[in-house]
């Protein structure tokens, strides 16, 4: 299942929209297949990615308005956002490769 982060480029704040079918309304139950459990996990990861981006934006804005009292906090927030995005990007790449491997399997 490919990850598709779509960016609302012209919106007020850009964000990573969730996975189709992996939103919070999916109830994990004891008899659920591994599919929806994985989806739930992915949804949570995306949520934390979005949160890290939002935190970084808030920190950047506090820097612009001069309210930032701790430069280290701003730097850490932006760094975390950068790493989260790189991680998501790597996961996407790996997932795409895995899907391609499956499709190329000789039956």
């Amino acid at each position, binding site marked *: 299942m490919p990850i598709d*982060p779509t*960016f609302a*480029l*012209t*919106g*007020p*704040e*850009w964000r990573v929209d969730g996975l189709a079918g992996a939103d919070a309304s999916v109830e994990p139950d004891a008899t659920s297949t591994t599919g929806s459990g994985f989806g739930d996990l992915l949804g949570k990861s995306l949520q934390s990615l979005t949160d890290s*981006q939002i935190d*970084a*934006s808030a*920190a*950047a*804005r506090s*820097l*612009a*308005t*001069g*309210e930032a009292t701790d*430069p280290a906090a*701003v*730097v850490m927030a*932006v*760094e975390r*956002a*950068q790493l989260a*995005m*790189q991680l*998501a*990007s790597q996961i*996407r*790449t790996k997932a795409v490769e895995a899907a391609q491997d499956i499709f190329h399997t000789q039956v």
Partner: protein
Amino acid sequence: MLFDTTQLALERAIGGAGKRHEALAANIANANTPGYQRLEVDFHSALASAISRGDESKLALERLSFNPAKDAAAGATRADGSTVDIDSESAKLATNALEQQAAVQVAHARINILKSAMGVG
């Protein structure tokens, strides 16, 4: 990334810091001019008020222009009526340069975030 409010705010902060540098440099150049009134650019509060407009922030940020203005709150530091204290101007200049550097680095990092999201570099 280049379209979002935070990135626009950072860009304007970098520009505002540049304008403030001009004002502070003018103050330092006039350190010994009798009766000179110091100039200041308060870009932080201009940005804060533009950002606080909610939905209209982007428009407010785009329209923002930073103008050096006489600092009415400054008191005379010398008998000839000049309001420039060269040490305080130098300190403000250094602070301003660091703020500009911080804004540039954060803007750069956010651009890199977008690049890694796009799968570039």
